[in-house]
Structures are given as C-alpha cells and as structure tokens.
C-alpha cells in the first residue's frame, strides 16, 4: 500500500466501502475450555479493528456449499495477529470445525472488521463496566486487553468485569483474568457460577446476574460508566432491564446478544 492509499483508506471500524472476503490461515490453536478454542490467524491485509468488533467467517465445502457465521474478535486492536475464540455448539455448521477441527495451516475466509456499535476505546475515558455471560466474554476480553496494552491511559480508566459461567471449567480466559486483576491498576474481576456449586474457597458469586449482583459488583451508576453487556439473549435482557432499574443511563448501555440455539 502506498502512502496515498493509506491516507484514503477509511479508519478501522468506520463505515465506508464494502467489506472484502479475505483468506485467513490458522497459525495457532489454544484450548480455552471444554468447548471454547482460540484460533490465532494470519490475515494478509487486515486493516485493524476496534475492541468489541467481530468478523464474518465463511466456510466452503468441497461441493461448494457455504456456511457463514459471525464471531467476536478476542485480540486487542494492535495485536500482531487476529485471534478469535469460538465456542463449539452442538449441531452447528461452523463452530464445530473452527473449535474442534481447525489446525495450523488450515485456511478459511473472513471479512471484517464489522460493527461500530459494540466497540470501546480507552479514548472514551469514562469508567468501564463489563458484564459477560458465557462466551459473551470474548469481545469484552478484547476491551480488557486493549486497556492493558494502553499503559497509563488504560490504567486511568476504572474498569470492572462481572462474568457469569456455568462452572469453573467453563470460565474462558480464567488465568489471564486473574493475572490482569492483580496487576497494578488492573481491572476488578468478579465471577459468578450459575450451575455448579462453587468449590471450597470460591470468592465469587453463585447465582445468575441480577440487580443485587450488579449493585455489588458493578461500577456505580453515579460514576456514569460506559456499560457493555454480552451473552445469551435471556441474560442480556435481564441484565439490561436490571441496569435501567438501578439508574444506569440507558444510552450508555450497549448490548450484544448471541445465541447457542440453532446458531454456530
């Protein structure tokens, strides 16, 4: 790309021209949980992205049949490689291959970055409140990684994550979250388990995220935080309603719903 082309190119995440499908090659895979896998990708010409954006992935079978799904980006904006974390959904057309079969050297197509709504940047500077259910933590992790990679500007942003998982073994990025939380200026991480009885010594919650949980673990509404909620539809709707009831500014609450049912 020449300097002129670079200058004419719209900024990452902005609107503008149509998105091209690009070849992506798997360079590394990491098991996150029983069902979630991170794929680190080489995507030539990737234009960069904002924390919270996603990509469309397209798989093409030998007979030409194509299946397409949307996945959140897990890597922060300036990471050298694009990373997706994919949860395997039973009966899905795309996620079983991505999460279970894809190996280094395998290729597929993707387009992106997509979506300017569920995005966050340290430049927004207000306190950051993240609420995740299940694999809804993925775009929120990109935000926490972006914050962690932003030095003093990141540490200046008060940040809390409240993350609900069915069981300890289902907590994606568990070690990294613990590590981030003990760093100086790190985010406050609160976990809650919804199905499994918590193990001895558990310091988190053991219930679905409700108004009392949000009041205990969230950034206070008086601090006027930017709030991001991502998870399954019933969780997102319950949390969004509870937040409004607690006095959070509705215009600052951004939601992203994903569905295990029939998708994947």
């Amino acid at each position, binding site marked *: 790309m020449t300097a002129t082309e670079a200058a004419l190119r*719209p*900024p990452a*995440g*902005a*609107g*503008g*021209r*149509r*998105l091209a499908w690009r070849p992506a090659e798997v360079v590394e895979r990491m098991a996150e949980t029983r069902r979630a896998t991170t794929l680190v990708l080489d995507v030539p010409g990737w234009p960069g992205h904002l924390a919270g954006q*996603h990509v*469309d992935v397209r798989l093409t079978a030998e007979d030409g049949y194509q*299946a*397409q799904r*949307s996945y959140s980006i897990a890597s922060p904006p300036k990471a050298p490689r694009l990373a997706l974390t994919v949860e395997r959904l039973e009966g899905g057309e795309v996620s079983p291959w991505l999460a279970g079969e894809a190996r280094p050297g395998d290729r597929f197509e993707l*387009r*992106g970055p*997509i*979506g*300017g*709504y*569920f995005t966050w940047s340290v430049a*927004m500077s207000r306190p950051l409140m993240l609420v995740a259910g299940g694999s809804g933590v993925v775009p929120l992790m990109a935000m926490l990684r972006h914050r962690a990679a932003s030095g003093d500007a990141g540490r200046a942003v008060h940040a809390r994550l409240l993350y609900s998982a069915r069981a300890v073994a289902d907590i994606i990025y568990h070690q990294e979250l613990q590590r981030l939380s003990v760093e100086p200026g790190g985010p406050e991480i609160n976990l809650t388990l919804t199905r499994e009885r918590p193990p001895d010594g558990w310091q988190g919650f053991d219930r679905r995220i409700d108004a009392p949980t949000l009041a205990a673990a969230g950034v206070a509404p008086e601090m006027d935080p930017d709030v991001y909620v991502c998870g*399954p*539809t019933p969780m997102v709707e319950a949390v969004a309603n509870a937040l409004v009831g607690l006095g959070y500014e509705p215009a600052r609450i*951004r*939601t*992203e*719903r*994903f*569905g*295990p*049912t*029939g*998708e994947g």
Partner: protein
Amino acid sequence: MSAEGERSTLDGNAAGGLLREVFAFDATVAPTTCVGCGRTRPMAELMLYAIELGAILRCPSCDQPVVRIGRTSRGLWLDLRGATTVVAADPATP
C-alpha cells in the same frame, strides 16, 4: 439458523456484515425509527431472525419487522417499510 416465529437469539450486531453489503455506511450504529411503536434505536439493537438467505430485523419493543433483506439471484432485496427513518451517522462522529 432461526426461522421466523422462533425466539431470536441474535441481534443486529451479527447482521453487520450483511448490512455493509446493502448500505454505504455502518448501519449497525444508524438510529432507526420503528414504524410500529415510534422508538428509535441503532440497528444493532434490533432482534435478528435468519441470516443465511437474508435477514429480518425486528423491533425488540413491538416485534415490528423494521429492516428486511433478502438475497436473491438478482442481488440483495431491501424492504424498509418498517422504518420511518434511518439516519446515516457520520462515521467520524463516535
């Protein structure tokens, strides 16, 4: 893929790629007014039904289909009868 009539499990965020095939701007952030109830919200907050052969984006308040996109052999087909207005937000404005 969810069929119409089933409960939506996704929202307009997941239709962002398809919307970029139709609109010259990022429609997920575009304030869109529902013809059914008059509420205005970005397309990202609409409920998404079906995606492979197109998309139906419904109002989460009144269930009105607001944006309908079909993929046909002749191209993409857009039905905006459910939207009173769609505001193409300036991409430079966050």
